[in-house]
């Protein structure tokens, strides 16, 4: 549980920044200078929305401290590609990458790749398999696999590269598959990228497979209670993040008059910056972090940066932004040793 002695973090969804490079730069820099800890990039099919992972990658070199966390589908995308793309994102962002796992019932996405639509419990199985493939591939190069040993002519130590030999488990609902490995890119800077998943997927996806859960509720009033419930369900080792849509009074217009329409199935907050500040201060006592989905990115971001975050910082509800920290650092996670690292080689007391 987060208290003011153990302050929380804020993430902002940058969906409104579209595909234009200049807009993306403006959005991520605005979010970073406002003091947000993380930026997320949604990826459900919608006209005008560019690939989330690439938007996050574009934001990497122009930002410095903010974590960059794209949504990436696990059902209709190749796990090998997902793994290497996310590892690459970690490199181009200097260890600030994360992954919001999505697994939705999506007939359109199925038709686009010519597969039959995956529903129900099978979604969780697909997601779990993709996460497992990615995690094994990230571990498939031990940290010190690149040795550049001129005397022996070896660039890598082959003993520190591993075939992952993943196979979908018995009882897998979809077409089973296997992935050989190793990865085609060395281990990500963070070792393992933080994996975030909607709480609704937990169960289908084993809770041990994720680092954080995203919690939704139908109304703001129900959100704190839902966070408590989920925390009880997932246990203490998992970071809990509340999802909140918002529209603020801005530029002389009342929130209600700004005509925002939310359809994400999330709690939606409408009101003044001051009342949002109070709301978030309370919510951050329950949740480790809150992910904000502003109705209008640039308008609401302006209010958040000017009024809400400074006040939350003054009340010590927010963690300080750590210069040159990784996303794992922000979430309070250790850097784990590779699962393939030989016991003798593993540093004492390393990771899970």
């Amino acid at each position, binding site marked *: 549980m987060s208290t003011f002695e153990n302050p929380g973090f804020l993430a902002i969804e940058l969906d409104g920044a579209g595909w234009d490079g200049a807009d993306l730069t403006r959005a991520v820099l605005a979010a970073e200078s406002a003091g947000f800890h993380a930026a997320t990039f949604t990826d459900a099919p919608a006209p005008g929305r*560019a690939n989330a992972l690439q938007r996050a990658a574009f934001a990497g070199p122009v930002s410095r401290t903010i974590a960059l966390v794209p949504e990436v589908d696990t059902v209709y995308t*190749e796990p090998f590609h997902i793994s290497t793309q996310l590892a690459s994102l970690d490199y*181009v962002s200097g260890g600030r990458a994360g992954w919001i796992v999505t697994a939705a019932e999506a007939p359109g996405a199925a038709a686009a790749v*010519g597969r039959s639509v995956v529903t129900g419990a099978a979604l969780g199985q697909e997601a779990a398999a993709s996460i497992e493939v990615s995690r094994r591939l990230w571990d498939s190069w031990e940290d010190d696999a690149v040795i550049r040993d001129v005397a022996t*002519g*070896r660039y890598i130590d082959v003993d520190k590269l591993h075939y992952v030999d993943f196979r979908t488990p018995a009882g897998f609902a979809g077409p089973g*598959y296997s992935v050989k490995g190793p990865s085609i890119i060395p281990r990500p800077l963070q070792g393992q990228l933080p994996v975030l998943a909607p709480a609704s997927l937990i169960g289908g996806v084993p809770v041990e497979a994720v680092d954080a859960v995203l919690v939704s509720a139908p109304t703001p009033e129900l959100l704190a209670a839902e966070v408590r419930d989920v925390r009880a369900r997932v246990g203490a080792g998992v970071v809990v993040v509340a999802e909140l849509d918002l529209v603020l009074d801005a530029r002389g217009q009342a929130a209600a008059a700004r005509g925002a329409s939310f359809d994400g199935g999330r709690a939606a907050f409408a009101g003044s910056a001051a009342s949002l500040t109070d709301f978030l201060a309370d919510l951050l006592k329950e949740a480790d972090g809150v992910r904000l989905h502003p109705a209008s990115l640039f308008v609401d971001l302006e209010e958040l940066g000017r009024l809400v975050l400074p006040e939350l910082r003054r009340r010590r509800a927010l963690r300080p932004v750590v210069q040159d920290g990784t996303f794992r650092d922000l979430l309070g996670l250790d850097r784990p040793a590779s699962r393939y690292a030989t016991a003798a080689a593993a540093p004492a007391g390393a990771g899970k």
Partner: protein
Amino acid sequence: MTQHTRAKSQVGTPDQFTPSGQIQFGVFFQGVNSGTIWKAPESGSQTDFESFRRIAQTAERGLFAAFFLGEGLRLREHLGRPHALDVVGRPDAQTMLAALASVTQNIGLVATQNTTYNDPADLAHRLASLDLVSGGRAAWNIVTTDNAWTGANFRRGGYLDHADRYKHAEAFVETAKRIWDSWETPDGPARRVLHEGQHYTVDVTPRLPRSAQYRPVLFQAGDSPEGRSFAARQADVIFSAHPTFDDAVEFRKDLVERSLAAGRGANAVQIMPASEFILAPTAAEAAEKKEWVRSLQIGPQQAIAYLEQFWGRELSAYDPDGPLPEIDPVVEETSETRGSGFHGAKARQLADQWRAEAKDKGLSIRQFVTSKTARIDSTFTGSYTAVADQLAEYARVGAVDGFNISPWLVPSGLDDIVNHLVPELQERGVYPTEYRGSTLREHLGLEAPVRSADGAVAAARA
């Protein structure tokens, strides 16, 4: 090194093909190979973003048209284990290029992506995304990846024979073009794109509008007759492996014929061969530098490992500075285990042939392997002025439209080219003195593409 430039060859007939009189440069950041030196103290990280940033920004300072990333979806192996002696491990091309898009303004961003292990709608969407975030600078270097073991990393598995890969690739590329062409007006909406084929079915309503360059530029890398004809039908540029002058001229003639046969103009497909430059103020210094470069590229262990691929057995007991092994290979068929270009030659026959050749020329294992590695043929060695003269001749004749330079050092490997060779070429009037526009299509002087045909369901082709 000037013997090529004395060739009197011309390309095609003047009414068909018109040399532009210019050459362009691209940089091919290969990542994985023996060409990139990792043993020199000045050799930097192969994965850190700063290496990529430095190369891309240097190339942009030198008005390079494009920055290329290669792709390999399975690690090369040697005697059943990952190959240890060369640079290995590299970032995903499009993720890296999207990051580079934010720290560059003009340079084209070319992602090598294969058609066998991707889904057309997904790949087309990601390329369109890269094209939009970069302001119209994206390109796709289309590869088919013919090595059998790559499929083990994918859900699809290794589901296509070599012969079917270009058929599949063509249906894939046509579907991608229809996806990029589907956005009706600047504000949308998109037309639904349907494809029913042997290997996959696509039914998608695309999400993204056209970019500033209409759609990503298409490069193709593949050299077989099928590969060349495919490029002549579908691509804007072919990334060839024929940089020596006479070869380049032959290749141009062949490609012009294929382009005309495909119903496109003689100038429709540009040619940019892979190449390596070893330059210095004088010819003597360049020759010395080349010795040094080669000794670092093919060290003693690499030389032995190279032979082991073909012998199929450990040869570490042999002296790299001695003669080729007298023992015979253990395999009948050589297999391509490291992504090198030799297929199906009978191993024993090859061994006999090589032993004779090495003996004939008095070469040690190391010297022999150095002479065998393909890069030798793609190397321009000499003083800045001599190489500039040589390239000016390529431009005059129209042997190529440009060169894809593989720097042998990362991240400083383009410095001498940009600082010394480019100005020499500019003085000779054969190299751009500014970017022609802001998109890759503009830099290359390519026409806006013809919008691909409409139609509810494309005929099944693959």
